[in-house]
């Protein structure tokens, strides 16, 4: 297999324009003859499906939830970046590009990132036209705020519910096409296999989560926009049904997985409180605009805090260590997520952590409350403060919040070329499901930007280019042997799981996997921890296939749904650990303790690791083949990231 990124020639700023001029088109009469399947209705999936429908293609779109409006994009809080420079603070497409490349620690493709920055402005225009109620200032024009990893205010937001509002915009567009009949919506369906015919993606096998039946759907092309795989860590900020199974089946059918070890740990989450906990709650990092992060300077005081003998408010100003402001005076509390997360872990590991677990730091609004007044703080962050109080039972207007990093986003995903096409022809990946734009670390407010960019502004062009030579291919029948085989394989896998009837629940296995991943493949990884993790995951996987207990209930079977996902996570975890072990450097969210600067910053090795690692599946028990896509930086200078 040869990886070809298909990046157009010419100067960076002209590549996308040139591509659009030269792409092939499909005339309206032919569009009607072509079918596209879209998996997922988050920002990427919904916007792509709606746009395809408007163009005149026949679209079938699938989601796991009861409604397309519930995809997990809905939970994104903080905002969406765009290079509008409305704030007149020196922003530009070039600067957004620079920040994203630098934020990703120079492990993303220049051409993709530039295109993302270029279309960012169109997204805001589009969403405003859809009636997305972005925050505005008194002039009636759009308001902006700043976000981690940037020194300009380029983030557009709708209270603390930006993801919700953008998703509802895309859901509206999708609903419009469903009403028109160009898009057919299938809810409560989970993709369990990809059907490949003569080397091209031609359909999917899905499980109807209500009836339990397996269903076959055929198309000329398939888009996977099923989100990230963060729940391989069990506890994460992802939704309960977020999973990696759709992309994992694509991987097993020949699509390469790229940079699987690049996972993002978000610094501002509510700390873990117990074993039965099912998920972690993120609070928007916009809180870092006004909140100041600290731990006590004195480890003894930290101990007393952990034991509940003193309170945070008992620690006077001069005894507080605002460690981000101390270490990074230029960016302070607004350093990128990976830097902020590691710094919190460093303080807690050194014995300065608070909360009864010692796994928390303070995020304090005392200064902001004095500077802005309670009303202004409430206006900006009221819903977040309320959410915090509900979960922790403490009032953040009085007592500082406690935060700790949690798994939030996966930069890795299916390898795609410039057209967002995977190594399987006709299989495209969009949004968090692909690896393309964020390198080794995603900047805040860039996930929404990428999801909508892929769906509204990239795929409609590249998909057309692919389908242009498919106009003579008739609609596919689902009776072919390829569909038969794929469905049978799924059927057998389900039968195998149901037949085990062991003594351990799916959740127990998932929690144990999560424990291995967090401890050994988490924020700081070493050769030793990763080697151990690989062995332990293999053992756990073997145990799963001997002892998992799944009820044999006909029809809806929620335990079976979870079991199928965890079975895939038990394979994915191993690949993540392998990738992390291969990458003998630290970059962005991937921190290998062996590779750090004297002051504890990530130490990249550009000479040996400036490449995208793309893995080709060789069977569950065999090592995958590693393909390298060398990254060439012609427009930015590779530097050690410096937020001081």
């Amino acid at each position, binding site marked *: 297999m040869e990886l070809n990124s298909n990046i157009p020639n010419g100067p960076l700023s002209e590549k996308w324009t040139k591509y659009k001029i030269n792409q092939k088109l499909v005339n309206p009469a032919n569009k009607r003859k072509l079918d596209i399947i879209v998996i997922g209705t988050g920002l990427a999936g919904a916007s792509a499906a709606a746009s395809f429908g408007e163009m005149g293609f026949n679209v079938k779109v699938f989601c796991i*939830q009861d409604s397309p409006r519930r995809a997990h994009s*809905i939970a994104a809080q903080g905002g969406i970046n765009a290079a509008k420079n409305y704030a007149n603070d020196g922003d530009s497409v070039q600067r957004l590009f620079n920040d994203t490349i630098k934020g990703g620690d120079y492990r993303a493709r220049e051409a993709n990132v530039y295109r993302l920055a270029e279309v960012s402005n169109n997204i805001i225009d589009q969403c*405003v036209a859809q*009636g997305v109620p*972005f925050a505005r200032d008194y002039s009636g024009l759009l308001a902006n705020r700043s976000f981690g990893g940037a020194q300009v205010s380029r983030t557009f937001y709708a209270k603390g*519910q930006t993801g919700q509002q953008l998703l509802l915009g895309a859901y*509206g567009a999708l609903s419009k096409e*469903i009403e028109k009949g160009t898009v057919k919506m299938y809810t409560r369906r989970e993709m369990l296999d990809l059907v490949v015919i003569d080397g091209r993606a031609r359909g999917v096998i899905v499980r109807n989560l209500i009836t339990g039946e397996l269903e076959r759907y055929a198309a000329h092309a398939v888009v996977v926009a099923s989100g990230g795989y963060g729940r391989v860590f069990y506890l994460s900020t992802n939704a309960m049904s977020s999973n990696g199974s759709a992309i994992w089946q694509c991987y097993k059918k020949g699509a390469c997985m790229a940079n699987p070890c690049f996972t993002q740990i978000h610094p501002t989450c509510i700390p873990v409180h117990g074993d039965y*906990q099912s998920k972690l709650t993120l609070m928007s990092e916009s809180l870092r605009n006004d909140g100041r992060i600290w731990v006590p300077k004195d480890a003894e005081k930290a101990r007393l805090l952990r034991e509940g003998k003193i309170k945070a408010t008992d620690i006077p100003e001069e005894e507080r260590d605002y460690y981000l402001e101390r270490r990074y005076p230029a960016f302070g509390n607004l350093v990128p997520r990976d830097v902020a997360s590691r710094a919190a872990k460093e303080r807690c590991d050194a014995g300065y952590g608070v909360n009864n677990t010692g796994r928390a730091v303070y995020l304090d609004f005392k200064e902001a409350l004095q500077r802005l007044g309670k009303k202004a703080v409430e206006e900006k962050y009221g819903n977040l403060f309320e959410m915090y109080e509900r979960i922790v039972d403490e009032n953040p207007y009085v007592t500082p919040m406690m935060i700790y990093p949690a798994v939030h986003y996966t930069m890795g995903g299916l390898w795609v070329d410039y057209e967002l096409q995977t190594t399987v022809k006709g299989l495209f990946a969009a949004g968090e499901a692909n690896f393309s734009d964020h390198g080794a670390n995603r900047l805040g407010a860039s996930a929404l930007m990428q999801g909508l960019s892929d769906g509204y502004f990239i795929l409609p062009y590249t998909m057309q280019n692919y389908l242009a030579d498919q106009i003579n291919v008739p609609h596919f029948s689902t009776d072919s042997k390829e569909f038969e085989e794929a469905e049978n394989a799924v059927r057998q896998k389900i039968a195998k799981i149901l037949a085990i009837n062991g003594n351990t629940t799916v959740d127990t296995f998932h929690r144990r996997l999560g424990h291995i991943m967090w401890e050994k493949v988490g924020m700081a990884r070493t050769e030793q921890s990763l080697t151990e993790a690989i062995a332990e995951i293999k053992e756990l996987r073997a145990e799963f296939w001997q002892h998992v207990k799944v009820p044999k209930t006909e029809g809806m079977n929620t335990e079976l749904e979870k079991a199928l996902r965890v079975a895939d996570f038990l394979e994915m975890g191993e690949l993540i650990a392998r990738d992390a072990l291969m990458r003998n450097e630290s970059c962005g969210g991937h921190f290998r303790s062996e590779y750090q600067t004297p002051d504890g910053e990530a130490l990249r090795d550009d000479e040996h690791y400036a490449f995208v690692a793309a893995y080709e599946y060789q069977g569950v028990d065999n090592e995958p083949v590693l393909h390298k896509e060398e990254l060439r930086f012609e427009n930015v200078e590779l530097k050690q990231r410096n937020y001081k």
Partner: protein
Amino acid sequence: MNIKLKIWRQHNAAAKGEFVEYQLNEVPAEASFLEMLDILNEQLVLKGDDPVAFDHDCREGICGACGLYINGHPHGKFKNTTTCQLHMRKFKDGDTITVEPWRSEAFPIIKDLMVDRSAFDKLIQAGGYISVHTGGVPDANTIPVSKRNADLAMDAAACIGCGACVAACKNSSAMLFVGAKVSQFALLPQGQIEGEDRVQKMVARMDELGFGNCTNTFACQAECPKNISVSNIARMNRQYLAAKIGGKKTN
């Protein structure tokens, strides 16, 4: 804490349902209500029983998937709280907690506590959007929107589509849900072009789908986890009336 649960169990839409009692011990006070159900389900699975089916996803109060009738209130009795944000510390040791699915003809039961809310999607499909196509739209700052209207539109748009308003209403009315969507666009200049059509189409679809009418009890507002105001219903009524008096027929 130790609690007793009375949960509605119903194998599928056609089956006859019944309340089943479960004793659940040593429930941690920090657990959310759904985590408490997870604990119950894990015990049921180990015993070889079928776990209780319920919808849930983000577990942070925004996706709108969860929705249980808890002790006679949608999402429980606490204000501005979704089921997933309700914590067990709000209950006392020894409490009996009754858990039912949404009760509305427009939301048929699928299994146990899970109902079919696709009627809400159909309502949105009737016109709960601005019909712009991708691309070719003006610059975002071309049309200013007063901060007041933008904020009110945002308040209306905060609806999570959980269905508590319908479940709370004795008439199973979807007026708060539709009113919120109509209001969001009625408050924005971009929404004006299709305003008259939108309100008529959505109201007509509401009737087709079997939702009842509004008799101003405001139970919807009282139980809405996102504090959506009934003033949105008033705004929709004004829009509807204006569209009818204006004499404009729907397309």
